[in-house]
């Protein structure tokens, strides 16, 4: 018993003591960095990049922490309250507006070289900007489209659109589904990645609203969702989606193998699936834009971006790290690992996948020509996303679309009112 007590005391002391870390060498800046622990290849790449960066110069030494993706926001919020944010951190771009509003981020436009900012895709600048300031830049952007097998489409004599402006209309798309279903065992021919976690639904299906002329929220002042999210355009669009779901056209994809095992002909998915799908079907795999619900095809964009904590003592050093990660070679190393769209024109030009004529060039076109819509740039986004996600789940489960969207719009409006319209408090 006595031994036990002593060991306890010892442990508590040890636990209290561990905040002391080895002192860095004189002249070297220790930079704490957080990144998300994504796919293994992504993680290995960033580890290599950090290692290389630390070796090639002495002024800055990065200490890197990986944080699981699903709990990332909770982590950041917790650290922010504790005043324990790292100098440099990665985060999913829709949270940027919330973090910026809460005053955790430093504007980047004066910290990053002007030429670098010029080279970035316009979509990257657009999504990273809140209230006129750039708070986050990504080294890559995401792409969302329909993956299909050319042979199957040809079998049912489908038209194959190559550019967003040629996208299938929703009627054409639904007829195509019906024709494909005839050829299929169980009639489920479409994969909507229903197995995916939370953010997917806002990311992948808010373009449906926008393509129909609706949206998640009124973007003129970001004060209300009512009349937009539950407006006629949004409701009609989501009724189409509900139709696919309830008539058995959609595979539940619990095993995440609906497309690669050939169970479905079409997969509504992101750039990250390219490698696996290509492995399964080779050159039979093609990419087509999402269907047009009336106002032209729209698609999602945005991915993980880098930002600098307002409390960082060495923001200039943190910016140097961002600049390093945005070098074409580094961008390509990362996009090679995760298949994403490179963030700069220079890098895209060097990418066999994304350069004109490359199999994924459609993603670049969507981002560069304005078919991709960033998620609403408001601090209310976490609630908007949670509400829409709930609505999508309800719609999937058969709740009338109008009712599901009314409920979501009301929840969003209530939140905005609770926060007095999210007034600007944290001046940049």
């Amino acid at each position, binding site marked *: 018993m006595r031994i036990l007590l002593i060991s306890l005391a010892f442990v508590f002391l040890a636990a209290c003591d561990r905040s002391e870390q080895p002192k860095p060498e004189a002249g070297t800046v220790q930079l704490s960095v957080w990144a998300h622990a994504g796919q293994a290849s992504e993680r290995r790449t960033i580890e290599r990049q950090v290692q290389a960066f630390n070796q090639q110069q002495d002024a800055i030494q990065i200490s890197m922490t990986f944080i699981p993706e699903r709990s990332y926001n*909770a982590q950041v*919020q917790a650290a*922010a*309250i504790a005043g324990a944010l790292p100098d440099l951190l990665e985060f999913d771009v829709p949270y940027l507006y*919330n973090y910026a*509003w*809460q*005053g955790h981020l430093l504007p980047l436009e004066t910290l990053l070289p002007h030429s670098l900012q010029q080279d970035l895709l316009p979509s990257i600048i657009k999504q990273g900007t809140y209230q006129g300031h750039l708070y986050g830049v990504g080294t890559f952007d995401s792409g969302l489209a329909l993956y299909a097998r050319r042979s199957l489409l040809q079998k049912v004599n489908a038209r194959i659109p190559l550019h967003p402006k040629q996208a299938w209309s929703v009627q054409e798309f639904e007829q195509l589904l019906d024709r494909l279903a005839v050829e299929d065992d*169980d009639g489920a021919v479409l994969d909507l990645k229903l197995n995916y976690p*939370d953010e997917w639904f806002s990311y992948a299906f808010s373009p449906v609203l926008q393509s129909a002329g609706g949206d998640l929220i009124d973007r003129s002042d970001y004060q209300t969702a009512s009349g937009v999210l539950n407006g006629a355009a949004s409701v009609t669009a989501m009724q189409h989606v509900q139709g696919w779901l309830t008539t058995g056209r959609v595979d*539940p994809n*619990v*095993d995440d193998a609906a497309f690669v095992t050939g169970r479905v002909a079409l997969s509504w998915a992101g750039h990250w699936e390219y490698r696996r799908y290509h492995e399964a079907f080779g050159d039979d795999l093609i990419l087509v834009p999402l269907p047009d619900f009336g106002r032209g095809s729209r698609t999602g964009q945005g991915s993980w971006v880098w930002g600098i904590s307002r409390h960082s003592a060495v923001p200039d050093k943190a910016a140097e790290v961002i600049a390093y990660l945005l070098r074409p070679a580094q961008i390509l190393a990362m996009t090679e690992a995760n298949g994403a769209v490179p963030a700069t024109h220079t890098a895209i030009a060097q990418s066999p996948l994304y350069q004109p004529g490359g199999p994924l060039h459609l993603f670049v076109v969507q981002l560069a020509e304005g078919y991709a819509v960033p998620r609403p740039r408001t601090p209310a986004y*976490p*609630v908007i996303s*949670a509400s829409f996600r709930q609505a999508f*789940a*309800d719609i*999937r*489960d*058969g*709740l009338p679309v109008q009712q599901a969207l009314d*409920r979501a719009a009301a929840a969003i409006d*209530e*939140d905005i009112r*609770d*926060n*007095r319209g999210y*007034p600007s*408090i*944290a001046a940049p």
Partner: protein
Amino acid sequence: MPQRALISAGLLFALPALAGLLIFVAVPFLLSIGLSFTNLRLGSPLAPEFVGLTQFVRLFADDAFTRALLNNLLFTIVVVPVQTLLALGLALLLNQPLRGLALFRTLFFMPVVFPLALVSVVWILIYAPGPDGMLNSFLHLITLGHWVPRDFLHDPWLALPAIMLTSIWQGAGFQMVILLAGLQSIPEELYEAARIDGAGRWQRFWFITLPQLRNTLIFVMLVTTILTFRLFEQVQIMTRGGPRHATTTIMYEAVQAAFSRQQVAKGAAITVIFFLIVLLVTLLQRRLARQERL
């Protein structure tokens, strides 16, 4: 002197635990009560305001929350008796001199040692929809092909029972161990006496086993009730409260509010209601137990 010494010794003995409970449970809970009357949001730069009972009024107008209350109630009403009966059956089967008992006991207990997060993931696979899903193909097999494949976790009528099944599977072993221990503490003479009095197998069970096991059963059911009220992880991982709130629970709503929507105040209000409900249930159960004893 002995008296005074005892007073301080008692307090000193209890002090570390009391201090721990005070700092890490009581104070946060009191804070929750305070927060439930505000509109505090996690990380918001806006100062929180006192909003009176707004959070509570909103909660009771919210279908998701009222459905959560109902689901918790259903879950408890079904799981507590079913799980207890299953555990009792297992314990009775094991309370006999048979070879390999320790092995069976360990097998039945095994699900208990699996963290819920892991258990839930495995069961998602078991409930996979379509004819290839494990449970679907199993049911297809035993109904000789009459089973129509279902999407268990997205069927408003089946999702909650599916979660119940998972929970029962996971929890029955624990109850079994306790009940088995209770069974083994029943004196053999009682059975011998009953046998001499001409009691058959069922009568011995009904007139000896059950009454002797009564306190154990009450204990087991009380603990299970409290645990069922905390139902959260299975829902979080398997259904996220869906379909159409068919599986949402009080704890799930609380965690959603506080962490997903950053509405700390709403989460706090749910916590307060939760506490009141469980307190009520516990008191009720204690009273019932006491009355029966008289």
